């Protein structure tokens, strides 16, 4: 198999992800990632929560601004934005309730 033949499917996958990233606000995925990491990296938690908040704002900005190549706002993007915003705000506004939920789920080590 030639190098170009090996490269083609990988490039196709990458371009597919690229297209998705264009239409899907990357800030939302980043916010979720930062928030998820904050559960396990206790020392960096304040920074990661702040980072999640900034990325969420970027996600909202992307959604509102709309990129040229994504003429239509997909319902999936809006649903994802609302879902992620709800999680980030819940942790910021109701940390005790979230911690209680985690304790009941027995997520040891998340401290």
């Amino acid at each position, binding site marked *: 198999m030639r190098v170009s033949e090996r490269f083609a499917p990988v490039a196709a996958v990458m371009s597919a992800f690229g297209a998705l990233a264009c239409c899907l606000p990357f800030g939302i995925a980043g916010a979720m990632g930062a928030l998820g990491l904050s559960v396990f990296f206790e020392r960096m938690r304040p920074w990661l929560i702040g980072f999640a908040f900034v990325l969420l704002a970027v996600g909202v900005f992307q959604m509102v601004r709309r990129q040229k190549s994504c003429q239509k706002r997909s319902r999936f993007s*809006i649903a994802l934005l*609302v879902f992620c915003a709800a999680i980030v*705000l819940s*942790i910021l*506004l*109701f*940390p005790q*309730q979230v911690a209680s939920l985690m304790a009941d789920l027995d997520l040891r080590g998340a*401290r």
Partner: protein
Amino acid sequence: MTRTQAVCLAALATLVLGGVYFTRTGHAPAGQPKLVELKASPLSTLQAGFNRESGKLRVILLLSPTCPTCLEGASAVEDVLKRHPDSKIVVFAVWEPMLSTDWSKPGTGPLQRLSDSRVQQFWDADHTVAAALAVTEEATQLHPSCCKRRGVLWDLIAAYPAGAMWSSTVPRPVFFDGTMVQSAAGLEGLVNNAK
């Protein structure tokens, strides 16, 4: 305003109002005194309460209201108390801000995890109790294998026998370990003997 914007605005308003509702000062469970803020009333409030109950086994817990492991530990201690309803014991649960999410006093949810009437709950914003326990920890060479964050003790159980008095320093504990969820089993033997 579009329909989507209105829905988003309503959701945000609900979250903010819910946050205000849930983060107001929590109600201590029935049968317990109100949550005491050690910032408003000095450490001597806890010291006086500790000495007043000198005929009983006394236990000090250090917890954070948004630490899931601490909340599990609180429930574990509550289970021990439930299994020994006749034991002569007083538990001083001291909540302190340890994590970046600990920006408010413990609400009703965390307080209800310790619902036994033999529990008294405190909010120690300045870590005064942790500092007092740390002095004893140094003096008595009791070093638990856990439970310090940035030099402040937390997620810890300290138990004191009947007769021990808190004078200028906290007395030597008979049990000093954490995390609470892991040490609750060790506490149970003491609670069982305190009848």
